[in-house]
């Protein structure tokens, strides 16, 4: 990617913010995936809209991670289709999904610990200048563009030459989210961003997520914590045994009912009955 293309990607992201939020950015229809004879996910229909935070919740093995991995091109669906802006599309790799604005931020945050902040920030999407064999990593631009993006999100990480391992958990999330936003993320996928954080840092990260949504990004958030999901989410997708069993808007829920759904919903009743009759 050249410096010019990078700046273009940047202005794209602000254009997205002006788009009407009722047009789904990313939509999946009849999405499913089997691994051999094991059905990991089936029949999922979801439309993700710009400016919304969609929380994906469910028990271990419910299909949450297969779902988000298919969205970002890490796993290919075996059934169904993915539509980007209403057009059917296929992602052969995370690189390709990312080039279309679908960026995943993983639990490990995709940071190489011994690399500097700016090297990490542009990992896999290095801005270059010059051409032919003289094409080079535009270091000056990289440092400056990173600082600018961090400021937009209100994150201050200090010296861009710091190695990534010196960041705190919350700072790491900030860097990873800013990186995604920089690439013009239209769909930002976050996998348990607050799982290893304390209360204060969790709060800061959740505020970052809201800010990203306000800038017109469709955020997909996987989290096991009902309080965090409820505070930040506009919409909740509940997965169970490889199926999408609930698709609710936040207005239709209370923290209590969300906690109940997240704990497994009907399964909790089954469990209670099982314990009572044992």
């Amino acid at each position, binding site marked *: 990617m050249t410096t010019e293309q990078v700046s273009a990607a940047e202005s794209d992201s602000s254009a997205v913010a002006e788009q009407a939020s009722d047009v789904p950015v990313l939509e999946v229809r009849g999405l499913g995936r089997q691994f051999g004879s094991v059905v990991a996910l089936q029949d999922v229909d979801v439309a993700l809209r710009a400016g919304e935070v969609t929380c994906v919740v469910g028990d271990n093995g419910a299909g949450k991670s297969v779902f988000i991995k298919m969205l970002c091109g890490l796993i290919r669906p075996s059934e169904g289709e993915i539509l980007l802006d209403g057009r059917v599309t296929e992602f052969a790799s995370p*690189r390709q999904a990312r080039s279309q604005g679908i960026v995943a931020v993983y639990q490990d945050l995709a940071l*190489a*610990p*011994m*690399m500097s902040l700016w090297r990490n920030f542009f990992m*896999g999407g290095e801005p270059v200048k010059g051409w032919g064999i003289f094409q080079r990593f535009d270091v000056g631009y990289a440092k400056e563009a990173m600082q600018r993006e961090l400021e937009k999100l209100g994150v201050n990480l200090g010296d861009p030459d710091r190695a990534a391992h010196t960041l705190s958990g919350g700072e790491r999330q900030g860097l990873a989210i800013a990186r995604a936003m920089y690439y013009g993320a239209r769909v930002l996928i976050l996998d348990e961003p607050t799982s290893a954080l304390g209360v204060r840092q969790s709060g800061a990260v959740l505020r970052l997520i809201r800010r990203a949504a306000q800038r017109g990004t469709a955020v997909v958030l996987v989290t096991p914590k009902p309080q965090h999901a409820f505070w930040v989410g506009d919409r909740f997708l509940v997965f169970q045994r490889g199926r999408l069993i609930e698709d609710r808007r936040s207005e239709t829920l209370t923290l209590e009912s969300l906690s109940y759904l997240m704990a497994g919903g009907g399964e909790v009743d089954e469990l209670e009955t099982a314990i009572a009759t044992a």
Partner: protein
Amino acid sequence: MSLLQLPAFGKARPWVRTAVLRPELGSLVAAVLLLTFFSIASSGAMLEIPTLARVLDTAWPYGIIAVAVGLLMISGEFDLSTGVMVGTAGALLGVMATEWGMNLWLALLLSLLICLGLGLWNGLLVVWTGLPSFVITLGTFFGLRGANVALSKYFTGDALIENIDEAAGFDSLHAIVATVFGTAPSDFRVSLLWWGGFTLIATWILWRTKIGNWIFATGGDREAARAVGVPVNGTKVGLFMLTAGAAWFVGVSNAVRYTSVQAGQGVGAEFFYIIAAVVGGCAMSGGRGSAIGPAIGALIWGIAFVGIPHAGWNSDWRWAFYGVLLLLATLINHIVGERVRTARSG
């Protein structure tokens, strides 16, 4: 369970930060200290021009390959076949030029393609099977060790291939890879310029190109790099081809310089490249290192190789010295790595 129990701390200390960002500094300090030490121990003889010429002439073949091995190590992989690859390149050039009457330049190109092919083989096997590169390149090492001598005997009837200087194109090739500046014993080979140039280019690639960022990222956290779109497999395969290419360069340079090739050469040298890379601050676990560091690591070997007999000691101590140096360098690397890990979880 770690052997070294280190206190955890939240923020990395300044020296850890320096060690992470400038891993070659330690080896530079070591090289200066050693040169000073041997100068004193040899009453100044170490700093005379003929001695320094010998130091550099000892170091360059190790240096060129160590730089490539260092980049590969930063990406998290090893190559044990680099030593015998030197013999392969020389034997290929020799057989083609002396037995088949090929022009040396054509033989040069063909031997390069074959060596790059072997590097490609190493790389593809590593990324496709997911097996440790240690094992895969060890297989290549033994395969080539046998093939070098067997094929050389098959084609020439001997493991020693001679009279390369009678082949067409010898003079022009000799001028490029083996020209001498100065008169013996104060003579310097053009190989030193190749070594310096290669180190500079490798440094440039590592620090100032996106491929360099991919190398750090691949070794730093492979899955993370893949997830953000770094072509980790392509990076690794390319680096295996680079180490093979570096070995090829040394093999053909020596073949032209000495006008003969011992097909069994290079066995055991692979360890020196790895040691030079580690002494130069490249982390065996990947993700950290430099290109200049392995070059300094090779220079340290040259200093010790020449300095130990100059100091009046039995030259067998060279090996022991290098062993100790390897342990020290690994220990320092390990401590830095451990600090990074504890700081990360803290």
